[in-house]
């Protein structure tokens, strides 16, 4: 069995193919990051136009790299939300067209769930942990962190995903981008801040928003705190050497809050494991904090499966195909939240 996954919710057009065991055979990503970097962010109109011109080429490249034929595909999985309506439409309509012409089912995937199931993909270094093999039987705590989301959710029986906490203002990835801008660094902000922060071990004190009594997050205050530090020291002659310290302190604050709150939830919800996913899960200090200090087993997708990609959508289709029933009759849902179908 081969599953074809299509992702076009934001700025990447991507098609991935996985086999029935969860091996990733191909994962072609046509990134628009250069175009959007020019604009300082993602632009909806530009994005959907790019998807239309890329999707067929990307799909054919995925088949070719996996060395399989159209007739080998048994299931199509496609992101139907959340995301930019115009961009989602390109992927969903392409998937429905393929489904009709090949006579095979098409499975709608919540993009956020796709990030989570990326952790189930098998790679050379990455063997499935015990808790992953038992998916749908025991609680798994999932933290999905990206440019638009910071969601804490529990993956429960039969693949049901329940959102229990989210950001009340800025998403973690958005905070990285905005703080990078405040510090005069480039877009996307995540890799830039990580790189600059590596230059120092020093930290300055920055706040942590614990949102006590809730499982929610807040990063807006932290962003403002960085702004205030810059305002205070920007005319100092040593300001350029202070930037790495600020980047490091900001990153440490984000990692600290994400890690501590996720572990608390995982313990409280008697989770058999933790999945850390989404674009921000590519951040090295965040990964290391989870891998080295969590009292509960942690699965994190490999780097290239953390950011938006088609293989993670195919994985969500593959894992859920056996866990859930699904309707062929679906539409794009730009406002879909974690766990919603």
């Amino acid at each position, binding site marked *: 069995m081969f599953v074809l996954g299509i992702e076009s919710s934001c700025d990447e057009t991507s098609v991935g193919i996985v086999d029935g065991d969860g091996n990733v055979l191909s994962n072609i990503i046509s990134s628009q990051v250069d175009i959007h970097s020019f*604009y300082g962010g993602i*632009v909806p109109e530009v994005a959907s136009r790019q998807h239309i011109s890329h999707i067929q080429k990307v799909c054919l490249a995925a088949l070719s790299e996996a060395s399989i034929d159209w007739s080998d595909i048994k299931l199509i999985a496609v992101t139907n939300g959340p*995301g930019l309506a115009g961009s989602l439409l390109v992927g969903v309509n392409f998937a429905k067209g393929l489904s009709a012409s090949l006579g095979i089912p098409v499975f709608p995937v919540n993009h956020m769930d796709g990030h989570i199931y990326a952790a189930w993909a098998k790679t050379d270094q990455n063997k499935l942990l015990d808790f992953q093999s038992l998916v749908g039987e025991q609680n798994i705590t999932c933290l999905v962190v990206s440019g638009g989301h910071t969601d804490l959710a529990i993956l429960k029986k039969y693949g049901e995903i329940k959102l229990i906490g*989210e950001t*009340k*203002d800025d*998403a973690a990835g958005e905070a990285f981008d905005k703080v990078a801008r*405040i510090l005069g660094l480039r877009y996307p902000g995540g890799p830039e801040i990580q790189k600059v922060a590596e230059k120092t071990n020093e930290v300055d004190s920055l706040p942590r928003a614990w949102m006590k009594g809730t499982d929610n997050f807040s990063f807006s205050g932290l962003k403002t705190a960085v702004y205030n530090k810059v305002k205070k020291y920007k005319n100092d002659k040593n300001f350029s050497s202070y930037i790495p310290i600020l980047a490091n302190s900001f990153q440490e604050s984000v990692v600290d809050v994400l890690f501590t709150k996720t572990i608390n939830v995982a313990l409280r919800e008697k989770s058999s494991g933790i999945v850390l996913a989404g674009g921000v899960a590519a951040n090295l200090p965040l990964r290391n904090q989870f891998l080295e200090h969590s009292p509960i087993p942690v699965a994190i997708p490999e780097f290239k499966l953390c950011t938006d990609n088609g293989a993670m959508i195919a994985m969500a289709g593959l894992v859920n195909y056996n866990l859930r029933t699904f309707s062929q009759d679906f539409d794009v849902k730009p406002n879909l939240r974690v766990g919603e179908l």
Partner: protein
Amino acid sequence: MDKIEITSKSELDTKLLGKLVSNYLEVGDIVFLNGDLGAGKTKLVEGISEGLESPQTTKSPTFVLIHEYASKIKIYHCDLYRIKNEHEAIDLNIDEKSEDGIVIIEWPEIAKSILPSPSIEMYLSHCDNDNYRKIIIYNYKDMGIDEINKEFNK
């Protein structure tokens, strides 16, 4: 047109201002919020949303450009931070949205030429004191600005 200038001394103050403003908002109103990163624009929207008894969380719409909240009156919360020119804002159909709700727009500057005129426009800026914000309010509708004056410029 009235113009008043107030000083918010905390996030709570900024939120309270949002609540006071919400009392005067009705379907069709458009609110512009200008100000640097971290000036409190999203916090102000939170106050407006709470004032209108929305059960939903207000979050930064930077990434997706627009959020919609159900409340006594529907609220459209837009953020043009990432947009580079006015053409990219056309997709958001602001005119159409103002027909059935209140439209609040953060970072409107870039697309002002295609946006409808605001009912209220606010400029938020950082002050020397890290917690303080100077907020200038331009009131283009017949809003009871006295109440805001009374609360903040005691």
